[in-house]
């Protein structure tokens, strides 16, 4: 039974600090051995998770959703009305979230996603978050000075564009539906998906047409 007692947790954290090695590689190895030895964990399952999150699940999932929304107005309408159901039309493996919300960039509004309290992120659509998304710097600054953050990602918005920051405080997971760039009228869904970067779906990049200068 869990204690549900924060002071007890803090006390255990301090005990662990004085008893266990500080090298996380050593500690994680020891933890895995112990969990397997206890019968709480199957190492083959760990291999499988690492494999699918290294190879199968990643930003290409989200890019496929974005490209379809650009090509198929009915799908886009479903996506904006109920992101969870629309994403379920794809057969993504890995961990799904209970609620997915797509937020649409428009000429007058640019969306940016953050989790100030921890690291909530649409795993099934974008894979494992980049280190910077989980870093204290991004978490502290994105809600307070989003334009300074965007400038570091070389995103400078035209005057009159409002920034709307989504702080992921519940189990809803936000991702940005970027604006389709001009000059992509002739591209098919697969070619469009290839333009959509992870950062564009977090909101720290715009989608560039082929041949346009890349984000820094």
């Amino acid at each position, binding site marked *: 039974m869990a204690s549900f007692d924060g002071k007890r*947790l803090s006390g*255990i*954290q301090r005990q662990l600090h004085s*008893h*266990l090695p500080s090298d996380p590689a050593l*500690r994680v190895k020891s933890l895995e051995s112990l969990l397997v030895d206890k019968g709480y964990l199957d190492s083959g399952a760990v291999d499988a998770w690492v494999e699918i999150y290294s190879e199968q699940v990643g930003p290409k999932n989200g890019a496929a959703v974005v490209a379809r929304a650009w090509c198929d107005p009915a799908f886009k309408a479903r996506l904006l009305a109920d992101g969870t159901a629309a994403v379920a039309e794809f057969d993504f493996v890995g961990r799904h979230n209970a609620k997915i919300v797509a937020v649409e960039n428009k000429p007058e509004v640019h969306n940016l996603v953050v989790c100030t*309290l921890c690291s909530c992120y649409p795993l099934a659509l974008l894979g494992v978050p980049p280190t910077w998304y989980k870093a204290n710097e991004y978490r502290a600054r994105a809600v*307070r000075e989003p334009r300074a953050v965007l400038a570091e990602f070389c995103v400078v918005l035209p005057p009159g564009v409002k920034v709307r920051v989504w*702080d992921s405080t*519940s189990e809803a997971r936000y991702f940005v539906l970027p604006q389709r760039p001009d000059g992509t009228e002739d591209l098919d869904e697969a070619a469009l998906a290839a333009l959509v970067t992870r950062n564009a779906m977090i909101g720290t990049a715009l989608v560039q047409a082929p041949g346009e200068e890349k984000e820094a």
Partner: protein
Amino acid sequence: MDGMHDLGGAEGFGPIDRSHEDEPFHEAWEGRMFAMAAAMARPADWTIDWFRYARECARPIDYMTLGYFDQWAKAYETLWVDCGLLTIGELEAGKSLRPAQPLAPPLRAEDIRGKAHHPPNPLRPDAAKPAFATGAAVRCKTSGHSGHTRLPSYARGKPGVIQAYYGPQLLPDAAAAGQERAEPLYSVLFKARHLWPEATASEDEVCLDLWESYLEPV
């Protein structure tokens, strides 16, 4: 909990380090830790909110200095020691020194490959009726509490507007305390100029998902 984790709006932080932009894991142990968290058997009373609370209860210096998956490792070690699945002595030894607790069998590779996994669903559609209508003006409570909560300090006491109703969801404050209680959940829109003293001329906005007990009518 008024802890180090509550970082939204904290000043003094510098440029964002993007030197490890693209690898999902920089070192093999990070991937192992990420995967262990998903694959291990868990006691029936485990919740995601209890895990988050364990991260928040880290030593403040660790929260500020350790790598992300290193913090996960510490949080899981802490949770499993807390409920008696493991002992600190066993963690030191890296092997079992006493009988295991009876848990449901852990996932196998074949349960994972090629499949979608759905964590416990926090949505409770019929659990409650919303007190606030879309468009209603609200104000966040001024105080948090010493347990786990998802009302960030930067929003406390600040006025916003209900922009969407998401239906009832389990309240993290209760879930992290071992209770199952659902409450209406809203997407609430705040003007940046109401949150940040220097943003007086800004048209920017911040949206938070907030449970009904975090809010008061204005």
